[in-house]
């Protein structure tokens, strides 16, 4: 799936490679055969319903959980055979980020910087930089316990970035963040990708990923689902139309015999079109008919479309 974000730096950089990975917890098959690669210098979205095994997969990539079967490499390091170096190469942000009762934000970051082998002064400098980037400077001296959900999430991201990892694994990073933080998160991810880092983001907030991802990996019931079958080129989907003269638009649609629904209290209308070709035809016809059409856009994002098209049940 081609991305709408920055072009991936498609050099032979190793990113993440997952081949035939399985992992059970007792009788629960949390990950049941996942295969994909996430190239370096790109943001890869990991999308799937609740319980589809995303968190479990990230745990295996972070070197914390051993796959029952299959091979996992990050930055060209086998996570099993080269566990420590793989761990050093990876920055992992778990979906829930616990905090130490009485440590301040700065102390948390310096502790982790030290754990990654930085000197005390380098650790302090790094912590200051990251707090600044995450707009947490004001909270630097406060115990992390008192942070709000979104602030904590930002601190969690800073923590994952503390050693400037080659591979970044983010498990629902945007949850709880305000719109401004989300936009900044997007910018951060984009700039990291430009630097050649490999980024794998799992999120349920698909509009979030929409603008930043280069690739998407769909998982369902512990399996990666082939992305080709969800190509939305020919899929029936809703499109949002808007014109400076709404009446003209509605008259045009009536005449063309295209069914539409009107959204409450606005000049928008929504039409069902089968694929991109229909959309192109509609635009041509509207222009010919002199309708002052200024907006035509899919109602849902491509990821969301694809996701819904998966048509798999939630676990």
């Amino acid at each position: 799936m081609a991305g709408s974000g920055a072009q991936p730096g498609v050099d032979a950089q190793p990113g993440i490679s997952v081949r035939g990975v399985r992992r059970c917890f007792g009788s629960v098959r949390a990950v049941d055969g996942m295969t994909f690669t996430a190239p370096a210098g790109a943001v890869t979205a990991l999308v799937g319903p609740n319980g589809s095994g995303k968190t479990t997969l990230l745990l295996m990539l972070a070197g914390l959980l051993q796959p029952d079967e299959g091979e996992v490499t990050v930055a060209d390091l086998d996570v099993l055979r080269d566990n420590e170096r793989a761990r050093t190469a990876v920055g992992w942000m778990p979906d829930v980020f616990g905090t130490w009762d009485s440590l301040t934000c700065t102390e948390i970051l310096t502790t982790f910087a030290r754990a990654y082998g930085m000197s005390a002064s380098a650790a302090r400098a790094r912590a200051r930089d990251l707090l600044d980037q995450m707009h947490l400077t004001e909270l630097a001296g406060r115990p992390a316990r008192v942070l709000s959900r979104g602030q904590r999430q930002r601190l969690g991201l800073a923590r994952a970035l503390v050693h400037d990892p080659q591979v970044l694994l983010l498990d629902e990073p945007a949850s709880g963040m305000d719109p401004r933080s989300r936009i900044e998160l997007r910018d951060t991810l984009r700039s990291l990708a430009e630097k050649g880092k490999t980024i794998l983001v799992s999120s349920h907030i698909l509009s979030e990923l929409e603008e930043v991802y280069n690739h998407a990996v769909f998982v369902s019931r512990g399996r990666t689902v082939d992305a080709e079958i969800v190509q939305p080129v020919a899929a029936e989907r809703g499109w949002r139309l808007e014109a400076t003269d709404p009446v003209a638009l509605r008259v045009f649609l009536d005449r063309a015999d295209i069914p539409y629904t009107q959204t409450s209290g606005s000049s928008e209308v929504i039409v069902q079109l089968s694929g991109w070709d229909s959309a192109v035809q509609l635009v041509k016809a509207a222009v010919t008919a002199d309708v002052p059409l200024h907006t035509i856009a899919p109602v849902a994002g491509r990821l969301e479309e694809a996701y819904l098209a998966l048509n798999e049940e939630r676990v």
Partner: protein
Amino acid sequence: MSSITDTDMTASTDTRARSTTMNTWGLSWRGLRTVVDLELRQRMRSKRWLVALAVWFSVIGAMTTLVLVATASMSRYSGDTEATAGPMAFGLITLFVLGAGLVIAPAFTATSINGDRNQGTLATLQATPLSTVEIVAGKLVAAWAVAAVFLVAALPFIVWSMLLGGISVVQVLICFAVMFALIAVVCAVGLGFSAMFDRSASSTVMTYVVVASLSVLTLIVPALATVLVTVDNTTVRVYGLPPEAEWEYQQAIDDWYMADQDLDHSWENGAPAGFPAPPVQKCSWHEVTTQVTHTDRVWWMVLPNPFVVVSDAAPLPSSTKADPYYVDLGHYAAVSGDPLAGIRATVREAAIGPETERDDCIWLYTYLGYNVSQEYSGTTITLTAPDGSRPDYVSPVEPRVVTTGTPVWPWGLGANLLLGAFFFWVAVHRLKIPYKRLRKGTRVA
């Protein structure tokens, strides 16, 4: 937002990248320090621990005051010199501090790992290049350091008891060193259980069960086991009057009583007139069967007891070295009232086991006006002639003297350290990543 500097980082990260693949057992100074720092910061900053320290200080203080008042009045009562109050007070305070230390030590580690796991802070730490050993050892060292602060807080009171005399600095140092080691063992046990159980209630209870077993069960079990090692028909060699001579002598005494009922039979001034002299020249070896308790078969069960370990390791006051009389540990323990020496003498006596030879003859000398005294430990019998001299009677039975030689505490401490090492290993084993199997209901993060 986009300036993510990576200037001096790559260099320093490289120094850490070791060639080892699975670094579960790797241990570096820097890694250890990182974890110790983290743990100490976390513990020390809460007000709770200061409150606990204050409570601890006042409890030990109150206890010390009580002990000192009690020992002072006791030694005045018995007419002993003040010097004996020192060892007694020191011993009591040391045992109390050890007991209190054993009670609080589990609190420092018993919820350390499962608590972190429940808080969601463990996995992020494990995901760093820190090795499992660095994490576990860091937690142990930090908890141990905090526990050590508590022990050290009791030092002023120990010094106070030293003022009573008879206590040397070496004694204090050795007692504290052994106590530090024992507390470290309890910390390790707590750590092991906190890695084994997910619920902090379970791990805390289990740690206290182990502490209670070590300090109480190790006494109860051998005490009950003495029933099993009590043997009815055991042959003991006795040096004394042979049965027929014994019988004859009893006859003679009976006859003497019967001869004149009105005679003065009082023993106040030695043997009354006409009392038949015991035929001590007829003393010889013969065998009798009797019931004996083989304490030497069960005594070792008390070895892991922390109180026994500390008592046995505590050196005797230097004053005892000068006095040959004090070579008998039991004697010293009884005279000084030093509880450490008392425990030590009891354990070592049990280790010697039942006597296989006995001197009954020596008691006959009382009828000759000699003074026969059994020493406090019950193992040495001394004979004093009426004129105060030591007679030339040499008992053919070796005196059983409990001495300070052949210490037993290294075994006890060794057993404890093995236990601690085992639980440390359990904790490391449980936290080894990547996890192969997870306990039911545990999530990594």
